[in-house]
């Protein structure tokens, strides 16, 4: 083939490939436009005031298509599929308690996205913000509203690999003192001091004493439930095969996802509740794999997200292994019941 012919072939190919590429981008951006229009039959969303101290409300990230997509939104806790009030504050993940909120956000940059955690006051005004080193996945606030925690997936540790690790951060909201990674805490595993470079933490959940928290620790391909001590800066292993713990309001039980045997690798989890006094595990009546940190609506009821048509839907389930899951809201994720004002 002559150089001229080769160049002609290349030119034709460039045109064809560029057409496909441009069409795919246009297709995806047209979808973006569609997503900014309210979908028929979807929940009614209107702008309004959202506060973290209004009793009887559930606040969450609204994923329904329309102008208020991804905003923090509130509904009556008694009617979670009812009309939504949107706040204008956009978050990827969210949690709130006792008038303190934590909102994990993406900051769109020129070259890449970065992420940050906003600490919000009861009127959703930013009190403080912190850098988050990767894609945020879990957020929690202590029942007193004094501490906030978040977890991020950190890629980029290696130049071209697909290796991921997690970092869990805790901040004292009152002083602004930040522990960027729980890896700074002393680990006591099976009664002995333990150190390993492969330690990962995620899914912090706080007790109401402003000292105790629980989290997942992963090392050597195993996951552990750890009890943490904010003052002694230690974590102690309690149980194995526990991920994303969530402490019940009375502090006696942990709801969590457990890797069950014989399940596919991409959907390996089942919901369980662990009684912290007897260490007895109860399997819950959710037959699907749940990849979420559940929330206690009250001492008997759990709420969690499962993938849905518009991102995620919220489900509710009794915490004692009875009953069956019921969908309470579509196109919603990261719920917080803001009336649970324990202490502070």
């Amino acid at each position: 083939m002559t150089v001229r012919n080769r160049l002609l072939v290349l030119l034709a190919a460039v045109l064809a490939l560029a057409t496909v590429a441009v069409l795919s981008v246009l297709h995806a951006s047209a979808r973006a436009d569609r997503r900014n229009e309210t979908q028929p039959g979807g929940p009614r969303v209107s702008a309004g005031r959202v506060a973290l101290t209004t009793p009887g409300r559930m606040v969450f990230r609204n994923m329904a298509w329309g102008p208020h997509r991804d905003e923090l939104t509130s509904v009556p806790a008694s009617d979670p599929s009812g009309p939504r009030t949107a706040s204008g504050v956009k978050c990827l993940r969210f949690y709130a308690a006792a008038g303190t909120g934590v909102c994990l956000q993406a900051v769109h940059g020129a070259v890449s996205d970065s992420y940050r955690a906003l600490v919000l006051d009861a009127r959703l005004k930013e009190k403080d913000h912190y850098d988050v080193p990767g894609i945020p996945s879990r957020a929690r606030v202590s029942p007193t509203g004094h501490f906030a925690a978040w977890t991020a997936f950190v890629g980029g540790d290696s130049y071209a690999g697909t290796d991921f690790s997690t970092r869990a951060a805790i901040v004292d909201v009152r002083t602004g003192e930040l522990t960027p990674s729980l890896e700074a805490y002393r680990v006591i595993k099976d009664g002995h001091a333990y150190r390993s470079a492969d330690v990962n933490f995620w899914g912090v959940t706080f007790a109401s004493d402003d000292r105790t928290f629980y989290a997942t620790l992963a090392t050597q391909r195993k996951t552990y439930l750890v009890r943490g001590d904010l003052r002694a800066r230690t974590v102690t292993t309690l149980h194995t095969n526990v991920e994303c713990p969530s402490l019940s309001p009375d502090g006696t039980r942990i709801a969590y996802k457990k890797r069950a045997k014989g399940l596919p690798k991409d959907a390996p989890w089942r919901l369980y509740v662990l009684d912290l006094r007897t260490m007895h595990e109860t399997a819950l009546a959710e037959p699907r794999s749940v990849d979420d940190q559940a929330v206690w609506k009250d001492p008997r009821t759990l709420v969690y997200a499962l993938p849905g048509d518009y991102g995620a839907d919220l489900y509710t389930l009794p915490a004692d292994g009875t009953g069956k899951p019921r969908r309470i809201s579509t196109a919603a994720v990261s719920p917080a019941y803001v009336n649970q004002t324990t202490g502070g």
Partner: protein
Amino acid sequence: MYVAETRAARATTAGRRRGGTVAPTVLALGTVSLITDVSSEMVTAVLPLYLVAGLGLSPLGFGLLDGVYNGFSAVVRLVGGHLADRGGGRHKWVAGFGYALSALCKPLLLLAHSLTPIGLVLAADRTGKGLRTAPRDALISLSSTPETRGRAFGVHRAMDTAGALLGPLAAFLILRATVDGYDAVFTVSFCVAVLGVLVLVLFVPGGRAEPRAEPASDDARPTLRAALSLLRRRDLRRVTVCALLLGLATVSDSFVYLLLQRRLDVPDRWFALLPLGTAAAFLLLAVPLGRLADRVGRWRVFLAGHGALLAAYALLLASAHSVALVLLLHGAFYAATDGVLMAAASDSVPESLRSSGLAVVQTGQALARFACSLGFGAAWTLWGDRTALWASTAALALCAVLSLTILRPLESSA
């Protein structure tokens, strides 16, 4: 793309002045690598986001699979090298098969929605990468004169790295223009990869590129036994041993970035950008250091590159506030070693076994670095990061001195 082309163009004119240009084949292969790296780094950049935000998966499981893939890829590299030598100059077609395999993986990502299939697609992608690397480097070395090999590899590596820098930028521009436009990122990545294969097919000469008069001795027939007996050649054995030794003291990139963050207090929001610093320094220095290698001797530059790495370790140990300097030294280390090692190894391998020979050196180096990562991780666990870094600094200094003595005869004969 602008940067790479200017640099490549400048290198070419400079080469002409000195009486020796970078061969068109090298520029064509550089273009193929640039385009392919844009494609593959687009996917790498958005994959974590896609898994977590797009699919709602926890990507932790990948960490476990990663090591397996890396070991596999090292073996595939030897296979690719051997296949390319068989039949005297199938380099282009073996490389082309590798590029095409990786290209085909991109649309498959659109269909895979859970960890297992995505893991399989990424494994196939790496197989393609493993297959193509040695034949491609053999083509570069076969199409340049021994006097300009360092420069040729420098130009190629600069273009390759330019692609790696442009890829994430392209991916984020697409994500910006769309919402959840991962499908668009994968589709565009596929189109770009196909273009890369096409440039290879159309513009890289097939068969033995610009054959040189080098008597083919009996032990240089491209059989598997001949490939293995390459290690009986004193020169290549020395090269491999040195690459192995130094590889054993080369802490992996991810550890370097973690150490940077811990010891020099890099803010979290900059963490993901650290590899870009290394890549930028690599891009800027690859051509000048490649040319320097041609002029003052490849081993000198190769060892000096490890000197740069040693300096980077020392800065980390001193906790000197010099993140940019550490990244510059880290990039200089790659610029002085990555292509330069291939140029140096080419001198000791006969043409008929060039691809296998380069694969042996690359695989040896990759396995040594993997061993170093395991060792470094264990040392970090047992003694903490500071002691682990002291140990690797001492090991690197020792290996550098050993290499200096092993290589001295080579250097004087060159």
